[in-house]
């Protein structure tokens, strides 16, 4: 054993030296570094792309027409929050206001849930701060019958699909009013009545499933579009690549969103890929990819509507890269100031999606600072009431939860004999 070990060691050593001609080698493995780490000054350049830069072709055009879009940035709102250019979706102020209100509710809800977690009233939380437009605008641009496969950072879809803040708070607590019966960690929602498929922690698994769901829509000939979201980090998973390849082969009605918020926990996106654009990956598979200013509500809405129209007219898949910034910690388990400058978000050139939409509505004369302030106050008050009510259905620490024997429900449709026996064992333990 020792001999063969020594031999192997020798072999390994010579192997590691055989790449240099002269026998001398220097390590040259390239490992990318994040652009800024704590203590460094965040340096982002302003977006060079402007709202009028990219044309908006008919959604059924050949994908090669979209090459500039895969490497550019679809924008509607400029740096002063004025809307212009061919991608302006020209939606009414009412819809814009609805979007604004949803984003504000989500932001307040997130911050209250974070507080609850700090107080020990939630086991965990994960916010979507500064990327609320990604889910909100897309959700509003889609049809209520469209099927959604989100990741854990698109809470706004829940509100759009008819769940209430109370439903969401109860899921986070996991109490007796949680429709998923306390099975999952907070923010892992499932909302069948609103066509939101159960969210899984293993990242990216939803992407190829969504493609399959879109294939099923075509199989039935239904006019349904399917949309899914995953993160920049997750775009490294095999599941991402299965998804785009199957999508490219069967061309089902699917919108695949990469939410590029620059970070995957502590890992900068330059470790997720050596490429410059996630959207450009679609080109190699023969379908359109568009990079979209993810903090521009109107751009997200327009790009999603374009992709949905393409899908509904049997034009096949679209890959959308939502270019945004993760405004908060990854989750309540990490402190981002340990791996990125604490103030990095302030320098993000895409700004704050809530602020930008608010300014835009003010320019339109459809909203005022005063109205916004009272919206903030009303929302905060509503959420206080929601949390109070939610905890009447059970708190994390005291319960009540669903009773212990429900552990065995839903493993299968019906309880098999061995689980019946285990359930009886558990019940025997209770006294």
């Amino acid at each position, binding site marked *: 054993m020792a001999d063969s070990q020594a031999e192997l060691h020798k072999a390994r050593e010579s192997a590691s030296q055989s790449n240099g001609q002269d026998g001398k080698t220097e390590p040259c493995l390239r490992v990318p570094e994040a652009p800024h780490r704590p203590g460094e000054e965040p340096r982002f350049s302003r977006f060079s792309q402007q709202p009028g830069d990219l044309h908006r072709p008919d959604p059924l055009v050949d994908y090669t027409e979209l090459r500039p879009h895969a490497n550019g940035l679809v924008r509607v709102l400029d740096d002063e929050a004025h809307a212009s250019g061919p991608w302006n979706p020209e939606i009414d102020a009412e819809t814009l206001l609805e979007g604004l209100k949803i984003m504000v509710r989500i932001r307040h809800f997130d911050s209250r849930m974070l507080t609850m977690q700090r107080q020990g009233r939630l086991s965990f939380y994960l916010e979507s701060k500064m990327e609320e437009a990604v889910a909100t605008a897309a959700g509003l641009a889609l049809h209520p019958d469209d099927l959604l496969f989100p990741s854990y950072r698109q809470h706004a879809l829940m509100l759009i699909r008819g769940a209430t803040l109370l439903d969401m708070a109860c899921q986070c607590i996991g109490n007796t009013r949680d429709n998923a019966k306390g*099975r999952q960690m907070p923010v892992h929602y499932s909302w069948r009545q609103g066509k939101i498929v159960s969210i899984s922690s293993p990242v990216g698994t939803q992407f190829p499933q969504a493609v399959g769901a879109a294939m099923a829509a075509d199989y039935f000939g239904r006019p349904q579009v399917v949309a899914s979201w995953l993160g920049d980090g997750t775009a490294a998973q095999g599941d991402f690549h299965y998804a785009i390849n199957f999508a490219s082969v069967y061309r089902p009605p699917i919108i695949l969103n990469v939410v590029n918020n620059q970070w995957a926990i502590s890992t900068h996106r330059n470790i997720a890929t050596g490429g410059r654009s996630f959207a450009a990956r679609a080109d190699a598979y023969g379908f359109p990819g568009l990079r979209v200013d993810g903090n521009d509500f109107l751009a997200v809405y327009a790009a999603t509507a374009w992709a949905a129209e393409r899908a509904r007219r049997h034009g096949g898949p679209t890959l959308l890269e939502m270019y945004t910034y993760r405004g908060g910690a990854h989750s309540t388990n990490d402190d981002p100031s340990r791996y990125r400058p604490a103030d990095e978000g302030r320098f993000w050139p895409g700004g704050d999606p809530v602020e930008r939409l608010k300014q835009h509505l003010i320019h339109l004369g459809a909203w005022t600072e005063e109205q916004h302030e009272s919206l903030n106050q009303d929302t905060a008050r509503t959420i206080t009431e929601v949390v109070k009510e939610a905890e009447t259905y059970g708190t994390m620490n005291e319960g009540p939860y669903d009773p212990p024997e429900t*552990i065995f429900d839903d493993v299968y449709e019906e309880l098999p004999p061995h689980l019946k026996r285990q359930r009886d064992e558990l019940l025997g333990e209770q006294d």
Partner: protein
Amino acid sequence: MPKMNMIQAINSALDIMLERDPTVCIFGEDVGYFGGVFRATVGLQERYGKHRVFDSPLAEGGIISTAIGMGINGLRPVPEIQFSDYIYPGFDQITNELAKLRYRSGGEWSAPLTIRTPCGGGIRGALYHSQSPEAYFTHTAGLNVVMPSNPHDVKGLLISSIESNDPVLFFEPKRLYRGPFNGDPHKVPTWTNQPGGDVPEEYYKTPLGKAAIIREGADCTVITWGAMVHVSRKAIEQSGLNAELIDLRTLVPLDIETVAASVKKTGRCVIVHEAPRTTGFGAEVLSLVQEHCFWHLEAPIIRVTGWDTPFPHTLEWQYMPGRKRIVRALKKVMQE
């Protein structure tokens, strides 16, 4: 002797091996600059450089497969899988490639990987931050499977694993990282002044394939591993029985000699593990005990395990085997 918790002991083992062997390298999600979500690799990138300790793309299948290639071409990689619940995208590469490389090449090729991964429940992590998937890997020939239960063993076993030329699945019960959780989530002692909390600063090895007798006893034998070692120890105290407690530490290769000697002595056996029951590794231990000790057994062997369900969130403590469940089993095994 210095006191260390499990994280510090793991960090110390990695530090020593990076220092001793220039072919050792560490990579995985968030292990580089940040030092890992559980902080196991803190400071190592700074000390040894970016080509030795580095972040990987978020792709477990990619991490395992590239680690195999690195191993084939002369390195001794110690990849980290952030949670063992996320190891499955690498399952094909582990079971079909890593495990079979030596065999299918007639001994020509191998890859000396040590795959570190936190496992187990008790942190309110629900379905996907709580699993104990060791049995999937014990079922595949060609892999060693290790699950230490204290700082001293984790360091010695990690060093042995890294030095082993065979691949090792190295499961770290995350509930034990900061203290020997023994069944009460509200009262977890720290590792200071606990058995196993004294960890030499320097290099040492704890042999693979050797179980540890945590507590000697004559009434019955409790066989367990991972976090359940401490829960079982507490349960034995509470039961008032004089039970012998064995921590397997390594599941493959299994130290059946220590196990059989104990069961032959006591005639009674309880097996405890956190993973689900059906085809859990307890089933294998039970079979072996039956094969080796049948004529010495005075009672049927009892298994205390997690239920055959996914790991729930709010009902975590009704899922996890606790002291009560173990005490009941101890009483029952003594009654027969």
